[in-house]
């Protein structure tokens, strides 16, 4: 494991095309894991019903909430990050940022 794994990303790295795509990839992987794990079935908490009965009720609702958050990340945030990264790439080609002297 790289030693800088837990370091906060620098702002210029975060707001770069590569930074956007990295975050999009992470969100995609998280959603894929939750989806494959079958957590979509746990989203009935949205209608006010615990997805499972007994002691597992609260945990299953939490898992459902996790699924919804990851789903919104994948459906809403990922495309925005991808489009933004494309826009950044195009704009940097057209109007390159001049390095400070």
């Amino acid at each position, binding site marked *: 494991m790289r030693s800088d794994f837990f370091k906060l990303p620098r702002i210029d790295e975060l707001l770069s095309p590569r930074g956007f795509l990295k975050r999009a990839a992470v969100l995609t992987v998280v959603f894929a894991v939750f989806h494959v794990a079958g957590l979509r079935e746990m989203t*009935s908490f*949205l*209608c006010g019903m615990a997805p499972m*009965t007994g002691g597992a009720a609260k945990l299953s609702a939490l898992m459902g909430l996790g699924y919804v958050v990851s*789903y919104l990340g994948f*459906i809403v945030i990922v*495309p925005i990050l991808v*489009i933004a990264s494309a826009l*950044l790439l195009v704009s*940097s080609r057209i109007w390159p940022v001049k390095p400070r002297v």
Partner: protein
Amino acid sequence: MRGAVRALIALGSATAVWLGLLHLLFMADLDDFFGGDSGLRPGAASLAARHVKMWSEPTLKELELKKMRQSNAEWDFMGRTFLVLALANMSLRDPGSADKYVDVIDRIIDETIKIEAEHGVYYFLMPYARERPFMAKSGRSIFVDGEIALMLAARRIVRESDEYATLLEQRLDSMVHQMKDSPVMCSESYPDECWMFCNAVGMAALRMSDVLDGTDHSEFISDWLASIKRNLVDSDTGMLISSFSVDGQAFDGPEGSSIWMVAHCLDLVDPEFARDQYCRARQELGRSVLGFGYAREWPRSWQSPADVDSGPIIPVLEMSAGSSGMAVLGAASFEDREFLLGLMTSLKFAGFPVRRDGELKFCASNQVGDAVLLYAMVQGPVWASVKRRWNEAHVSSVGWVDKSVPVAAAGEL
């Protein structure tokens, strides 16, 4: 710094572009679920398949009902009602499969009546029903009587049954007697708590009984309509309030989880008033944001918290799962395709549909929610049959004409 500004502008632009396009990704194909007077649309058939299977596999049914009863015993009961209504419509749409559907209807009705007989009315009510006695001496709940009557009547519209005719008559006699005793002609669902939803359901059942049995409760229904219009309309919105005491004191104002079904039921007894209520609900509660349709639980003029009927309410938007689900029934009943498209687009986006082995379910919903959606998709034939039979029997003698039936056609009857 200029790079950061550029990145933020790119993010803002991307957000605007994507949010504007997002609904296209989930745009529902209404023809997959709705339309036509006969046959079943593929989406509706897939949704129905799961319900029919559930009532054929006791283990699956027990699991589903247990989950719902854990949150709300009413859902167990209402899920039965909406499924029976859906199956009755499906029987008329697809006569070739009617035997199968009627078999499920009978199983549901028989089991529901048996449970009520064994455990009493409280089995299908929330626990607070036991906190005090009903005001009416009979101790009956129109929530239970009205919906059982509606199930029995819907079954008889499809196929007559002497046994169910007697049961229907008993339920309605008791219901009408109780309503006549009330100052506002509405009966209790819970002790000293009347719900417009339940009373409107009762009225629909009464009109169905009139066409089935040749009785005529026109005068009673007319008095009831006059009473609710006089006593139970919210002055700010012109919409019927949802819950009130036996003497007509409002508990809850107009409520989305109630008004859409109320308008649907009123369509059998006063189509003009029903459409008026739908249009008001549409204006006060119906919303569309970025191509996604939804419904509020409360109008702007009435502040109340989320409850078991509304389901969780999303802040800012005030989006209610309960109201939005029932709004699908309202929009389908009154052929509001624009709103319906928005609602179904939202359902595809946030209802988490799963299609597997020819069956469809919405994971964010439950059995009662899916049954409401199924009923919304297939409703039409039962109501049309009641209207037609009523017009045939009364258009010349009483002069009451359902305005949703073309004048020329009504005149020909």
